[in-house]
């Protein structure tokens, strides 16, 4: 089963929930936690695993053999990203704009274009007992997160319980991280910001046709509009974590909630049973 933990808004507690859920499950299951927030991966700040494998992520970019090139301009004409330009007798490649689709190299009439890898990030792995962490890291200055997320997700082991820590937002990196999940857990906070961004995250889950449930973090500080919204939409609120300075303080020190306050383990195990039930129901319905 694959459970993704998403939110729309940043800083609502995705990583707190993902890591505590993962740790709670290791007595019963093999667990894989995929940190797909490759711009700012933080799961290991709370897990403290030793990273013992690291592999660079490359995207293929065009390399032009000027000896063969006739400057016909076909490559520049077909490139959707303006990543290659032909100016008189010169071909310019703009690596940051290239998505690595391979069209230019395929269509070049002189076969003058080959591809070379450009590193955009790394995928790292670490484990301890039943817990395996795969984390992606986008290189500083790189714009495109999806290729790194795709590489992280290639490591999915279907025999494990897979938990995905998703980046904030609603655009392509979020979609790349969430798609293929059996369930999407949406973490929010009871404020107008939390509610606004939750409604967007619910749209993402709907778009991808993935069942979802909500975790309300910092409960008790804002208002009850998130609860009311969930009720109206028929989205179950599966867990509430109170606003508690001790919880915030544990997080600040890099201590996961279930390690710092072990009584929460039961809550996360119950959460997981609820998710399993909802996934089974949704499979039957399909």
């Amino acid at each position: 089963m694959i459970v993704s933990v998403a939110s729309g808004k940043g800083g609502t507690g995705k990583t707190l929930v993902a890591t505590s859920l993962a740790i709670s499950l290791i007595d019963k299951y093999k667990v894989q936690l995929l940190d797909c927030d490759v711009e700012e991966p933080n799961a290991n700040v709370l897990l403290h695993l030793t990273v013992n494998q690291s592999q660079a992520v490359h995207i293929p970019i065009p390399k032009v053999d000027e000896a063969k090139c006739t400057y016909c301009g076909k490559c520049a004409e077909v490139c959707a990203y303006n990543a290659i330009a032909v100016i008189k007798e010169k071909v310019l490649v703009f690596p940051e704009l290239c998505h690595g689709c391979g069209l230019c190299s395929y269509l070049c009439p002189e076969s003058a274009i080959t591809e070379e890898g450009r590193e955009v990030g790394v995928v790292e792995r670490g484990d301890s007992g039943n817990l395996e962490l795969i984390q992606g890291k986008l290189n500083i200055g790189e714009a495109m997160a999806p290729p790194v997320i795709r590489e992280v997700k290639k490591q999915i082991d279907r025999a494990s319980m897979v938990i995905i820590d998703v980046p904030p937002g609603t655009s392509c990196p979020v979609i790349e991280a969430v798609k293929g999940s059996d369930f999407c857990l949406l973490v929010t906070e009871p404020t107008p910001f939390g509610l606004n961004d939750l409604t967007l995250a619910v749209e993402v889950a709907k778009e991808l046709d993935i069942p979802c449930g909500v975790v309300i973090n910092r409960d008790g500080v804002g208002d009850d509009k998130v609860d009311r919204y969930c009720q109206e939409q028929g989205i179950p609120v599966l867990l509430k974590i109170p606003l508690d300075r001790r919880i915030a303080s544990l997080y600040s020190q890099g201590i996961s909630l279930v390690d710092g306050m072990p009584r929460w383990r039961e809550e996360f195990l119950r959460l997981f049973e609820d998710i399993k039930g909802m996934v089974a129901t949704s499979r039957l319905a399909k």
Partner: protein
Amino acid sequence: MKEIVVLSGKGGTGKTSIVACFASLARSKVLADCDVDAADLHLLLKPKVKEEKEFWSGQVASIDEDKCTECGLCQELCRFGAVNDFKVDAVSCEGCGFCYQVCPVDAITMKDSMSGYSFISKTKYGYLCDARLGIAQENSGKLVALVRQNAKLIAERENLDYIITDGPPGIGCPVISSLSGANLALLVTEPTLSGIHDLERVIGVCRHFGVPVLVCVNKYDLNEDNTNRIESYCGTEGIEVAARISFDNAMTEAIVQGLPVVEYTDGKVTQQIKELWQMVSAKLEE
């Protein structure tokens, strides 16, 4: 005219709350919300929309079933896994046009995609430029560029002193698009290990694009050891820490009331944010 962008790496550190305060404190400015995935500034500034424009960007492939001979070439060549069973998955399609270019029976067309909306609004604090990216859409970087362009035109036309930009979380495409060419980046962090980790990465991005930075530690008394760590790290990197802001529920209460916190309370946080704005505006004059 000076442009300041507020960033953080990690989400939920208080970017939007601080930008709303700057809206209240600064004279002669235009506001820009570049978190086009999950824009929240409008919830505090209560804008009246003056101009709403569709944002068309990128293309998506579409297969005409009647013409398709199911030869499978498109499926084989697509590197984004967007063609399955001779249908295009619009969410996975990156619009490269590879399938369209090679289809032997011309069964594929490329359609422009409507990726969201941009808005120019009036608020009691002045103009606000923001946007809403469609769910699961790409090109957030281009929409961010459009929001900045709108803000710049207004600032020039009205002869305003500042463009104050609420940036997105992370370090990828929309952040780079918000940042490049700005006069100053204010990095809002929090004294958690994740906050520190993410701050270091976003500092890296600012350096990469040559934008000067100022740091502000929000919720500083949540963990004063970590606050000291941030300040000493910034010290060794030659980065100025402009302010410490207290951990105070008034920040959240103000969001619930839909107000910048400086208009909600006269308490300590308000004094701290006023001093922060003085530091920021002085830095922009340098």
